């Protein structure tokens, strides 16, 4: 009886983040990609426009989840600890110096997954709960 109660508490604690919308985020690619894992810096470089290619030289296509500002906000918060506004300002500044951002915008998590499945060199981010078998986690964002 006591053991059951302790287990319950443990489960509740483990699932607590889900219930608060603080879900873990994962950076994913299509299952068929040759890329295995990426470092945090590599993820940042790809998403912040430093590199447009993977370490192996393949061109990377960053997929932005434009339609889900909350998820997007959470992603950037976890990746570079910046607000979405700050990220937008960053891009706006670069725009003046003539640098063009090469990203693919998708409206929903489903669309992102669909795009990733079709493009093995595309890289995107989704909440861990939306992860399915067709995708490969190349980087896990957690605190």
């Amino acid at each position, binding site marked *: 009886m006591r053991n059951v109660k302790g287990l319950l508490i443990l489960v509740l604690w483990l699932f607590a983040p889900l219930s608060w919308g603080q879900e873990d985020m994962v950076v994913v690619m299509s299952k068929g990609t040759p890329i295995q894992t990426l470092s945090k*810096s590599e993820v940042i470089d790809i998403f912040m426009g*430093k590199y447009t290619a993977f370490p192996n030289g393949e061109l990377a296509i960053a997929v932005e989840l434009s339609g889900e500002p909350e998820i997007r906000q959470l992603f950037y918060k976890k990746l570079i600890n910046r607000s979405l506004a700050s990220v937008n300002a960053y891009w706006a500044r670069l725009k003046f110096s003539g*640098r063009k951002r090469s990203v693919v915008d998708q409206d929903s998590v489903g669309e992102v997954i669909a795009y990733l499945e079709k493009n093995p060199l595309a890289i995107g981010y989704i909440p861990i709960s939306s992860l399915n078998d067709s995708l490969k986690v190349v980087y896990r964002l957690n605190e």
Partner: protein
Amino acid sequence: MNKSALTLRLAIVVIFTAFAVGIIVSQLFFRITYVDEFESSRKNVSQLYKTVSSTVSIATYLNDQELIKEVIAGLISNDVIQGVAISTESIYESSEDFYQTKDSQAFKLYSPFENSREVGVLTITPNLEYIEQRALEISKDNQLSIIIQAAIITITVIMVSFVIVAKPITTVARILHSVKPGTEARVPIPTYHQRSEIGLLVRDINKLLDRSSKQIVEERNLRQQVEQLSRHFKLLFENASSPIVLTEPNGNIVLYNKAFIGLLERLGLNLQQSFGPFLKNIFEDQQRLITLVEEAFGNDEMASGEFKLNRSSTTGAAVWVQAIVNLAITEDFHEFHQITLHDISQRRQQVEQLNIKANTDALTMLFNRRGGEAQIEKLIYENIPFAMLLLDLNKFKQINDVYGHDAGDKVLVYVAMQLKKSVRKNDVLIRWGGDEFVVILTKVNARQASDITNKIISKIEKPYFLSNENIDVNVGASIGISLFPDDEKHLSSLVQAADKAMYAIKEKRDPAQSVAFYKDYNEQTNDN
């Protein structure tokens, strides 16, 4: 202009000090300004870096050459920056003429997304020339203001010190310089200095002037008194009837009065520098004078004595003085002899005349008995041999009785005259009393005495004409002779001896025998 004048000195010191301090301060100011400027330029550079830091971070993170160039261009437009260089892992970009110095500042650049990820270096070299230029400009302005300030202060200090200190002192000094000691003139206290040190100084100066003028007046009065006193003394001294002479111990005459000159003239002498100590050269008995003075001085007394001078006056009279010699010692231990000579010649003369009168027989003008005795005592005292003739007149009593005393007197005068004719100058004639005479023949032997005696008798026996009676009278004489020192050695015994001899011969009543020597009489007596 007076080089030592207070104002000029003060001005020179103030100007030099201001100049020196100005130079030092402006140099110091330049250094400080330069360091400040340099420090502020470093701050500027840091601030500039902060301004561009986010952009440059992004630029280096992205290796964005365009953005990097833009940043460099932006930084280089600042005057304080000489050059800028940015290096990333793949790019190196710098401004034109960029060089690195020890003053260059390097800033590490981090990824805008990862604090620990270094993405490049920004190097900024400050524009030292510009900084120096600015420091110079600033300090130049400062120098100018310091110079202006120093000039104003200098002029103010000089003017103030001139007006407040130098001018009053100069005025006081000038006035004091013209003040004659002993007058009523005083130094006025300069305006606005009633309570300052200058006022105090002037007051003290005036007090000193007061004191000195009082002293001068007192001294003047004292001097007048002394002068008056000395005039009186001089008058007293000059007009003293007695000669007064002040000499040094060696005899040099220091001071003398008119009476002394008068005395010298009387003696027929000229004034000399010295007449010897105590003027001894004008005295007859110099040894007695010296002994007297030395004895008196030895007893701390003044010497006083009567002395005959060794020269007679020009009229031939002997000059006698009472000399008083006094030892005077001045305050500074100089010895002087004060010699006063009182003329006592007249008194001396009177005494001498009285003396002569007392010793002279008024009728015959021979010595009387008193005078004669003194003469004989003197010869005895001096041990001069002589023969004493005691002469007694014969037949004189009858003349006296018959013709009167006047006739007797005339006979006596006549006899005296005969005696004078018979003896030598040095022989002594005495009217012994009544019709007795004593004749002293000095330095004769018995024979000579006998000769002279015979001569005397023959002259006396000559007849004498009594004009009143118109008759010749003649007297005889009996003479007894005693010899000194052969017969007797004392006056009375000599007289007794002569008397005995004379009576012996008189008793014989023999006109042929009228002279007898005591020694012969003595022999006869002994023979009897």
